[in-house]
């Protein structure tokens, strides 16, 4: 099972990076989600995949119970990942409203202004 998980994580990470390297900001946000999923799977797998029973204790602990620690970690990570996704979505929305485009390269071009030092002399002349 671990082998399957390893291959899946590799594929998901690659897809996520591919998406994040897109010019369209929408796909970049999707890439964030995919990589987040991959990271959660990676954490679960790194804690070994117990195929016995879930991490519930009734009377005594089962010998083949799943590792609860990565589960706790991943559970909060999912919710935090959603917070990050929502934030990225908000940025995407705001960028589209402000600049009328979701093209990452063009957003940089329209939103960045030349630094004041480059536009006028270092001595600050020309400013009353």
């Amino acid at each position, binding site marked *: 099972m671990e082998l399957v998980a390893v291959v899946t994580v590799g594929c998901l990470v*690659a897809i996520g990076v591919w998406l994040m390297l897109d010019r369209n900001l929408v796909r970049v946000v999707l890439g964030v989600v995919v990589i987040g999923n991959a990271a959660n799977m990676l954490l679960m797998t790194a804690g070994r995949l117990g195929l016995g029973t879930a991490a519930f204790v009734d009377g005594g602990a089962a010998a083949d119970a799943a590792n609860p620690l990565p589960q706790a970690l991943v559970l909060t990570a999912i919710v935090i990942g959603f917070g990050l996704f*929502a934030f990225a979505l908000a940025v995407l929305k705001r960028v589209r409203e402000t600049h009328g485009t979701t093209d990452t390269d063009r957003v940089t071009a329209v939103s960045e202004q030349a630094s004041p030092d480059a536009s006028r002399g270092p001595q600050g002349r020309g400013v009353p």
Partner: protein
Amino acid sequence: MQSRAPLMGMSMLNALALILAAAVLGPAAARLLGVRAGWLLMIAPLAAFAWFAAQMPVVAGGGVLVESIDWVPALGVGLTLRLDGLSLLFALLVTGIGALIVLYTGAYLSDHHHLGRFYAYLLAFMLAMLGLVLADDLVAMFVFWELTSVTSFLLIGFDHEKASSRRAALQALLITGGGGLALLAGLILLGSAGDAWKFSELSSAAIEGHALYPAIVVLVLLGCFTKSAQLPFHLWLPNAMAAPTPVSAYLHSATMVKAGVYLLARLNPVLGGSAGWGTVLITVGALTAIAGAVLAIRQTDLKRILAYTTVTVLGQLVMLIGTNTAYGLQAFAISLLAHSLYKGALFMAVGAVDHATGTRELSRLGGLFGLMPFTGAAVALAAFSNAGLPPFFGFIAKEFKYAGLIAMGWPGWITTAVMIATNALLLAAAGLVFVRVFLGPRGPWPQQPHEVAPAMWMGPMVLALSGFLLGAFNGWPETWLIDGAVQAVSRGPVDVKLYLWGGLTPAVAASVLTLSLGFAAYQFRHALRHHLTRWRAIWRINGDWLWDRLLRRTFGFAGRLAAGFQHGSLRLHLALLALTITVVVLVALVWMGREPWRAFEVGRVSFAGLAGCVLAVAGAAAATVMRERISLIAALGSSGLGVALFFLAANAPDVAITQVLVETLTVLFLALVLRDAPPMTRVDALAPVFRSFRFWVAAAFGVSVAAALAMAVGHTMPGDIAQWYLANSVPGGHGRNVVNVILVDFRALDTLGEILVVALAALGAAMLLRDSGRSALRSGGPDSFGSVFLRQGLRPLAGLLLLVSLVLLWRGHNLPGGGFIGGLVAASGVALVALGFGVTAARQVLRLPPATFVGLGLGIAVAAGVLGLLAGDPFLTGLWMHAGSLPLGSPLLFDVGVFLTVFGAMLHMLFRLLAKEI
């Protein structure tokens, strides 16, 4: 011989603290008392001055006062203050002139709207300067040194509306700050070479023989020369005249510019043994003195004349330290004192003239003596001292300079010639300042002058009279001030004897020569200027011209360098990041020499897990090529569901449920944002070479992550932490759902941090989702939600979901569920209402705004932790009580906090999103 002498409740530390208090109170005092604040604030430096003056008998007798406070004793970091002759001389100058300047400021800047701020800066500078001359620790001295640079920057740029002020302030900061960096390196080398971090413990034998000695000298000299405006670095000082006159009078004549000279004098016993030290000091000092004197004669602005003569005197002082002769060092101490007195007085008087007439231009001044008798008298006394006329203190200084230089033998004659020439020019400058301004015909003043307020002429008068009295009764300063200072500077005991007339010596001849040359220079000043002007080519390549070019080049270089890295392409940044990680991971794997595929067993494969993995990859892969928005969202959603299936197969029901719920909300959010977006562009419209680059970056990154994971999984897991949690869940946490017990009890502090992150992300996202103005009116929500049956069905469903969420919250400690899951379910329920009946209806259901739930949830979570604190245990310790057979505990309360935070955070974002996306 060291002694502690607490006197009158004062100490060096208290003197510093007193001035600090005055600095802090300065703005308030100026607001409450207005112009009269100066009289109050000057008490601090005056008290310090009185205390230092009272220490003169101890120090003059060869005593040394030491005070120290430990800061980090384990590292040997502390603040040690040490008062010897040199420090005492400087401390008296800093506090004495400082008190007069504070008083003067009140009158000079009486109508300035930032007078309080000025007091704060000025007194903060005073603190730094006093600390600098008292500190015995190398590091503490350096800290004070830098503080003087920073406060000086603030003071020079005080009129920050003017571009010239800003430029001068920046220039001073860059030059002195750059020198400070060199000094820091020099002091560190000095401390490690001498194996001592106090001036008083450094031994010249250990350092002068050390291999690092040349490096130390070069670095320390760089620091001192920049601070004391020696030749290549002198240009910041005249430009610093952009500061208000009290600053020029205090920092740029009497105190700060002498910090470099102070440090040279302080280190002379330690570093001054080599021939190179003397040669460098004398050469640089002589060149500086000549340049300053020549430039001074060219000026027509009174303040700039004084600034360049200050450069000259600083050069002379550096020369005198370099002589290391008995006369030379005496001359150093004498002229240091003399110069501080007369230059402070002249600057303040020039400020008064400026104040009274409205100009500092020589051509518009003249005949002021009758109108401004007190100022005029003060200037006369100070100018005589400046010119080195007997019996003023400046005369003694001049005699000793010549004697000290002549004592050096033949190189001394050359330097004596420099000294004679520069002193002659100083005399001419003094003549300009007094004769041209106060005597002769009345000038075309811009405004009718009048005598200035007493607070303004008092400072110059006191300083100028001191210069006269110290010269006339020279036995007094010899005993109490000069002797101690000279002993501290010299490399061995020196016999100090001040006199006005020492018989017919070569020094007297030089002095006579100076006087006649000086008078000639004054008389023929117009011709002199005319001749100097003819070297136009030289004046054009002046320091400022070079400085501007240097600065522009530096900015240009930095801009090009930054543009190379900050190219503005998000994708290139990401690609580089991914490549870097790939390389680091792969190199680490190879370096560790373990094949990832070794010891790898396929093991049991669960069908559900396999299906989940396939679904996850297929969905994600579909999302890369889909262009239609609905299919894109569906593909991503199915990928997430596949992941949930995987979690379920891995026996993680809590995680799987969370994943499903979050996936639902993800799809909802994505749909809401994308619904008014244009269709997606083609996957990539770039050249094939970029596409293949992108492909290989992504593939390599995926391979490296997979390889790292495979390697990690291929080993047996060390430790038995999982077993510990499983074994302690029921006895320690009273819960059978181990994952939930970890979240709310064992690792509750982590969870608290995590819900805080969720809350902050939600608030931040909501801020961005807000606004843009066009949405405010249409917050009613979509009324066209398809069929009536669906809408009617929504209401009970939402109620059911809320109930279920509460059940999930309650049972979470023992069965799948808990605060996170419950919060998400409840949020889904309210989300249904919001979708079906609009945000307004949903808000009515909630009664409180979602952000309040977030705050409430965080508050409850923290309160649950504080309960443990109140019981005397660490924060977030679980407390349990049994209501009948029902175990109740603070972890359950904590889970309620988690529930409310997640619930509120999700709805907070959703409402903002819905309110806009109509």
